[in-house]
């Protein structure tokens, strides 16, 4: 007898949509989240969301409440999936909470939505002196500051006069081993540049890029807006080196379209770090034997037409666990995974009835 219950692992945008969708279609859902809060990486870290620069908690509250109050969703906070036995229709999964207690639960199908982690610019080669210079920060550090409504130089607490973003840090680089584009960082840097200009209208803001990748409507909602309304300076050319000069940062690179070297002093440099599979995503690959595709994210079968079905029967994936995604993509995948998982459970209960 198949277990008519769905396990969703990870309560970011993808997992929340998958859980809500499956529960709305009448299934019992067990939602397991490693932290003490729903909402995933954006809710925990980001001040505002694209494209309308709405405050993140405001923007996501309705989605969170819908899941929290849903009678068919059983949420386990501070809990991870550590083992799984059995197969489609009857997985016996072992859950472990942060205090060490374990419990075994039976589920018929699984949606893995364990997301991504931010590239760590110190991991490989001390990239751009992130761990050396206080005023070199990442997009994530900048979001944390913006949550407090400010942007300052960590070294002295003063607002910066000149700010530079460096794109593609940890992405599109054979040396680092990450051959993919992280998809969102061009838009996020543009979004943050707008926010910085709103807070500090006299600051000069530069974005150094390889190519600006603005999918769909982000083109005019973020890129044109930053460039035209806020006079953000986009310079094609990637910085090779950052040095300390007095209390400023000297950045060296090439302005490739003007065909000349650039050496400019900056007060604050923000690294546009990309996405890598999260620790939880790698763990789930092991627990459920899900193959990883070329880049290390969870593999799906039948791309581009099926974005959520993994090669393991009864196991589906949604969101950034399957590769770099923005929230729209993650939520769409959450919905698609809910439909596939629910119809999978329905087929099982018919055939095994």
């Amino acid at each position: 007898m198949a277990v008519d219950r769905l396990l969703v692992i990870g309560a970011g945008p993808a997992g929340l949509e998958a859980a809500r969708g499956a529960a709305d279609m009448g299934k019992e859902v067990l939602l397991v989240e490693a932290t003490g809060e729903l909402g995933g990486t954006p809710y925990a870290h980001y001040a505002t969301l694209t494209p309308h620069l709405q405050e993140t908690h405001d923007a996501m509250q309705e989605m969170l409440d819908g899941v929290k109050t849903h009678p068919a969703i059983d949420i386990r906070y501070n809990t991870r999936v550590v083992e799984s036995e059995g197969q489609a229709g009857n997985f016996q999964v072992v859950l472990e909470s942060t205090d060490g207690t374990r419990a075994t639960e039976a589920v018929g199908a699984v949606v893995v939505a364990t997301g991504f982690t931010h590239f760590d610019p110190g991991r490989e080669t001390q990239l751009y002196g992130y761990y050396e210079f206080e005023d070199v920060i990442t997009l994530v550090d900048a979001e944390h500051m913006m949550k407090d409504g400010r942007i300052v130089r960590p070294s002295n607490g003063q607002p910066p006069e000149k700010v530079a973003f460096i794109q593609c840090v940890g992405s599109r680089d054979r040396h680092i081993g990450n051959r993919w584009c992280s998809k969102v960082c061009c838009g996020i840097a543009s979004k943050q540049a707008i926010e910085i200009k709103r807070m500090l209208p006299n600051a000069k803001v530069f974005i150094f890029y390889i190519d600006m990748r603005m999918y769909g409507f982000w083109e005019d909602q973020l890129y044109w807006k930053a460039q035209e309304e806020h006079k953000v300076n986009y310079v094609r050319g990637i910085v090779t080196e950052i040095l300390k000069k007095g209390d400023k940062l000297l950045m060296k690179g090439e302005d490739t379209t003007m065909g000349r070297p650039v050496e400019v002093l900056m007060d604050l440099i923000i690294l546009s770090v990309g996405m890598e599979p999260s620790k939880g995503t790698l763990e789930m690959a092991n627990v459920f034997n899900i193959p990883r595709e070329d880049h290390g994210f969870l593999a799906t079968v039948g791309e581009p037409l099926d974005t959520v079905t993994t090669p393991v029967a009864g196991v589906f994936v949604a969101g950034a666990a399957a590769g770099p995604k923005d929230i729209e993509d993650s939520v769409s995948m959450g919905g698609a995974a809910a439909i596939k998982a629910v119809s999978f459970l329905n087929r099982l209960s018919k055939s095994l009835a």
Partner: protein
Amino acid sequence: MLSNLYPEVPLEEKQRLFDQVKADARFEDYLYGCYECGICVAACPSARFYDFSPRKIAQTLAREDIEMFYEQMNDDIWNCSQCFSCVRCPRHNNPGGLITIMREVAVTNGLRSTKEALAGYTRIIYKIMTTGTQVSPDMLQEDAFPDWGPQVKEVASHLDLWRRALPPETLHTTGLSWQVEERTMLELYTIWKLTGVLDMISELDEGLHDIMEEVMDDALEDQGFTIA
């Protein structure tokens, strides 16, 4: 950033000219943001023959690169043919229009490089502004433009006859490209004076300005017009 071909000119002076360009009412319609895609360069006839790029003009103004802007004011803007093929820009920029504004600022400020660039055009400026027609048949002189070839000499020596062979009577002129009604000229003078176009010339070539002003004032006065 790293360009400074005119170190002897103080930054404040360069900034002053830049601010004048930016303050022009047309500026914000002519420059949104630049992709640096080069569509304008591909369309630009001048870019094929000179070391000249409308992309760099748009980029420099967008980036507010004051040093580079000053270089372009001196070394680039007179390479443009003002054909406006560059308005194909996907961002709806108008690099040629930006150059128009830069030229006007260069002229009104009488930049030395502008005086040099326009020195050969004194006769043409005079002709256009006083008659409304540009190159007149009597400019066809053997020595003026050697690349027009040897037959110019023959044409020039019987110019009046050649012109009278043309069917429209309005083209039976030698000192003008075509006949211009006096009323039209008076309207032109009024426009040059009221719009400040005549004044623009004074920084560039004071002598030329004074001669033209006299011609215009006399003609207007003869007909009983006074322009405040």
